[in-house]
Every structure is written in structure tokens, then in C-alpha cells.
């Protein structure tokens, strides 16, 4: 059973045109059909406006498709209630964003704990779980710092710790290195590759070929459709540039 299986996925945004008072339609995603197996590391690559972010939002249960089918772990997502969708986002998915999205004036530890608040994990285990995740990304020494005191790379590693604290089966990373210098970007990519090595399915959104080459497979998206499905033979390893 494929981890993710999409057939003819389409997304149309309807907006009101202030000039003509007529409804305008924007096709963000024209057609997407592919499947992703468990443990894969897939980069979705394309220029801005190609529909890759829309695709990620749909795959991550943050948005619904206008038409087409999406099977997540074999089940049609339209059968999920909103509560169930929120629960799956919480327990099976991890999110890493370009803008980090850490809570300001809140310590690294509390930021990493955030998904635990909405989980079934009992509160007494929260600290241990969060500290384990922070250890994995190598930020134990920064545990009581607030985001404003961290570098961009460190912030993104906090976000990674937050994404993996509930040991999700799949991690979505939306331009995770987009706001980082190349050195910090390397560290973040190594952390993501490590997660894949440990069996997490990774879906990475990027517009940079160099970032996409860390994946095992690249889906090229253009004008709202998957243009090409490419297997990477010589995967780029981020290890060389990683520094704690």
C-alpha cells in the first residue's frame, strides 16, 4: 500500500473580482497523479506559482482538493472528519516551514512541546519527549533560549525537532532552506536526510535544484501539473557541511 496515492488532483480558487463583480477562477493545480511509498524522500520542485505549495497543503491536509482523489495510507481523505484530519496531522505528519513559524517569546523546549499539547501523549512524558527531539537536532545547549536568540539555522532545527517530536510517519518540508545561508542550509538538509534514513517519508518543496538533489526522487511541477518524475541516482549528501 502506497503511503500517498493521488489521482487527477485539481485545485481551483474562486475569488471575487472587485472590478467586474464577477467571480474569478484561479487554477492553482491542474492535474496531479502520482504515488509515494513509505520511506521515500521526494522533492517537489518547480518555479514559484507552479502549484507546488498548493500540492503540499493538500497532501498535508491543510487544504482540500477541488476534485480528484487522495488516498492517505489507503483511505480516501474525504472520509475523514475535521477532527480526524487534525488528529492525523498531529500524530502522523510533521511540518517544517520556510519561515520557521516558532512561537515568539517562548523557549525552545516549549516550542518543541507544542504538538504534544494536542496529542494523546500524557503530560508527564512531554518534557522527556521534547528533550529527546532537541537532542536529535543537537540543540540541547539552547533548550531554554527564545527564538529571537537563535540563528536562522538553529531556528529551523528547532522546527525540525518540533516536526519529529511525535515520531510522524511523514514529514513535509516547505522550502526549509529558503531563509538560510548555505552553511545553515546544509545542516538542516543533513538533519532531514537523517530522518529519512531512520524511515520517515519526506516530502520536500523547493525551487532550487541543489536542494532537490538531496532527495531520492524529484517531481517536477510546472503550471499546475506534474511534468516529470525523476529518480536521483547520485544523491547529494549534506554530511560534509554539517556543524553543530
Amino acid at each position, binding site marked *: 500500500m502506497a503511503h500517498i496515492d493521488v489521482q487527477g488532483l485539481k485545485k481551483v480558487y474562486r475569488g471575487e473580482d472587485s472590478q467586474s463583480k464577477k467571480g474569478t477562477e484561479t487554477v492553482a493545480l491542474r492535474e496531479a497523479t502520482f504515488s509515494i511509498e513509505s520511506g521515500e524522500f521526494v522533492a517537489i520542485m518547480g518555479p514559484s506559482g507552479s502549484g507546488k505549495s498548493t500540492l503540499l497543503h493538500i497532501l498535508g*491536509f491543510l487544504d482540500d482538493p477541488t476534485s480528484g482523489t487522495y488516498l492517505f495510507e489507503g483511505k480516501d481523505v474525504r472520509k475523514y472528519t475535521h477532527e480526524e484530519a487534525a488528529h492525523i496531522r498531529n500524530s502522523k505528519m510533521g511540518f517544517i516551514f520556510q519561515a520557521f513559524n516558532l512561537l515568539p517569546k517562548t523557549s525552545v523546549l516549549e516550542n518543541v512541546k507544542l504538538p504534544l499539547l494536542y496529542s494523546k501523549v500524557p*503530560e508527564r512524558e512531554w518534557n522527556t519527549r521534547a528533550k529527546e527531539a532537541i537532542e536529535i537536532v543537537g540543540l540541547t545547549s539552547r533548550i531554554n533560549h527564545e527564538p529571537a536568540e537563535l540563528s536562522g539555522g538553529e531556528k529551523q532545527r528547532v522546527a525540525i525537532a518540533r516536526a519529529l517530536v511525535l515520531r510522524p510517519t511523514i514529514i513535509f518540508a516547505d522550502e526549509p532552506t529558503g531563509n538560510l545561508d548555505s552553511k545553515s542550509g546544509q545542516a538542516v538538509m543533513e538533519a532531514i536526510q537523517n530522518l529519512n534514513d531512520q524511515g520517515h517519508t519526506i516530502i520536500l518543496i523547493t525551487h532550487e535544484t541543489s536542494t532537490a538533489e538531496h532527495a531520492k526522487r524529484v517531481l517536477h511541477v510546472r503550471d499546475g501539473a506534474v511534468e516529470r518524475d525523476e529518480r536521483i541516482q547520485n544523491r547529494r549528501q549534506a554530511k560534509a557541511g554539517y556543524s553543530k
Partner: protein
Amino acid sequence: MSEFKIDVKLKQVIQNNMTFTYTIRTALRSLRTNKSRSFLTILGIVIGISSIILISSLGAGAQNLILDQIQGLGSKTIVLRPGKEPEGPSDVAQIFSDSIKLQDLNAVMRKSNVPHADNIVPVVFGAATASYGSETYSVTIFGVSESIQEIFDMEVTEGVFLTDDDVRGKSSVAVLGATVKEELFGDEEVIGKRVRVRNQAFRIVGVLPKKGQSLINFDKAFLIPYTTAQEYVFGYKYLSEIIIEADSDTTIDQTVADITATMRESHRITDPEEDDFYIETQADLAKSLGTITDVLTLFLSSVAGISLFVAGIGIMNIMLVSVTERTREIGLRKALGATEKNILQQFLYEAVVLTATGGVIGIMLGITFSFLISVILSQALNVAWNFSFPIGATIIGLIMSAFVGLVFGLYPARKAAQKSPIEALRYE
């Protein structure tokens, strides 16, 4: 998936995997990050709640003071007066009516007529000038019988009180109010001295203690036997009033009825409209004064209630700003698995924590202020003002503040809960 009608009942909101203390701590942390804004929001609630506490505490204090003073006069006291009950300032002349005479006193004193009367005191009063040597002072002459001592719990600081023998013998003896004694004698010895009133010399037998403010001020009184007053001072045979004390609180109404019947029989009155006397009880007075302070407290409390309402709208405004400001946070929390319930709960808790904090501070301030004011009032006015702890208002204040948070926090919280995660994440 991102937009659906919110259908959350409050009971469901409470059920959550997050523990209560953690939720409260989260709310407190988020309020701490906006200290000045939280403080200003709390201030509105603090003012509203503390005014409610202050008003009800001071209202209760005033009521107690008034009731205590009336109680001091004896709650079982019934006053029979001549003429028609005054209904306005123009009826004052009725006080000088001469319809109550000694035969009425005798009729009322008969046990078979008014069985529940304990003490009966005939009173004749009027203004006069008292003189001792070269000193003169305007006094109120109270011609009374010795039983007045029991009704008003009067004691003498010096000498003795009037006696039964003085009344029957029409003796020219007097008991002085504290101010009269001071004005005429200063620090001089008074017992046995003679004071002249309307060319009649009175031997002073006793002095009353200083009473201060009370409804009947005996400080300027010149107490003499009523028989003496009628015969030698005023020269008339009628009485200004008769004070009757019922034997218990439960027999007051019965006694009033008995006195009315006795008086009508004595005056041969069949039509109540023709009554040439009227009866007042201390209970009536207490009741009407109690009603006045109740109405006043209620009025002032509703003013405070309005300020609470305004504070509630302030809370709503602040929470709406907070929801807009934290659009990204809401989106993030949803992406990480928060349900609409979780978000609704989070913002509702913040509102309730805000108002409950304001409520607790308001209660403490209100109690402190009303205690201070009661101390100041009793010192400055020299009255027995007792601080009364407003338990009812405290409980109402706590419930009200939490309620304001719930009601005015609900709309912003719902707005927050309904935000779509991607819209929220895109928000800059």
C-alpha cells in the same frame, strides 16, 4: 476541510487531553507576553468588581448603622401621638394637638386593654430656657415617668434617676443631659444644685452620659416628672405623646391594634377616618430606612454593573486584536494538530484568566477600600460604623468576572477557531 461550521458545545470544550493547569499556564504565558495590554484590560474589570464590592459593603455598613441606632431606641417601641399622622410639612401643626389626656394614659395602662404593654411612659415636651446663676441655656424639657429609663436603657453618670415617688409627688427634681450640664455648670459639682426653668426651681438629682448622634438626642434634655411639667411648667393637662414598649417583637402588631381599639373606645370613635391620634412603631421606621439603603445600594450596584459591561466590551476588543495578531500562531497550531475546539478553548481560557485575575484583584481592592473607609468614617464621624464583609458581593463578583470573560471572550475565540490553517500561515 478547512472551513466548516463550528459546532462546539461548552461541555466538549472542557474535555481535552491537555491538563487544566497546563492550559492555565499557557494562557498566563501568552498574557505575560503582552503585559501592558493585559494590565489595561484587567484594569476595567478591577474597577467594575471593586466598585461593586465597595458599594455593597458600604451600603451594608450604612444600613447596619441606621438599624443599630433604631435598635438602640428599642425595636419594640410604639409611640402614640395626638392628632392626624403628618403627611407632609404643612401637617406639622397637628403635633400641637391636645387630644391625648391622662384618661387615655390610664386606659392604655389598663392590662385588660393592652395586655402586651411592658412599659408605658407619658411624655410632655417643650422648649424652655434653663438658668443657673448667670448661665442660661436653651433646653428641651422632657416631662416623663421613671419607666423611660427602661425603654431607652438610660443610666446616670452621677446621682440618681427620677423615681416613681417623684412622679406621684410632682417633685421639682430634674436629670440633666450631658450638654446642659456642661453649659450651665462646666466642671462644677451639680447634684443638689438648683436650676430655674420658667420661674420654677428644680433640684438636680442626676446627669445623663453623653450619647452623641442618635435619633432622639437627650444631650440637651432637661428630664423632669411629667406631672410636674404639666402642673408647674406648661400648665396644661394633655400629653405630647405616650411611649409604649411591647413585651416582645412578636406582640408589636397586637399591641398597636389594642392601643388603637382602646383609644377609639376612649374617644368614642367609630369611623377610623375620624381618629384624633396616630401610632408609629420603630419597626416601621427601620423598614422604610432599610428600603431606602437597599434601593440606593441596588442603584449604585447597577452603575458598577454597567462599568463591568463596558469592561467586557474592552475584553472583547482586546481579544479580537489578539486573534488578528496571532493569526500565524493559530495557523501553526492547527497545522500541528490543534482542532477548532483546542483553539476555541485556548482563547476562551485567556479571556477568562484575564477577567478572573481582574475579579480577584478587584475583590481584594474593594474589600481593602471598604475596610479603610469604614475605619475613616467611624473615626471622623464618631459613629459606630462597622466594617461588614461583603460575602454575597464577593461571590457575585467572582462569578460575574468569569462570566464576562466567557461571554465576551466567546466571539473572538470562535473567530480564532474558524481561521483556515493555510490562510493563517500565509498571513504576514
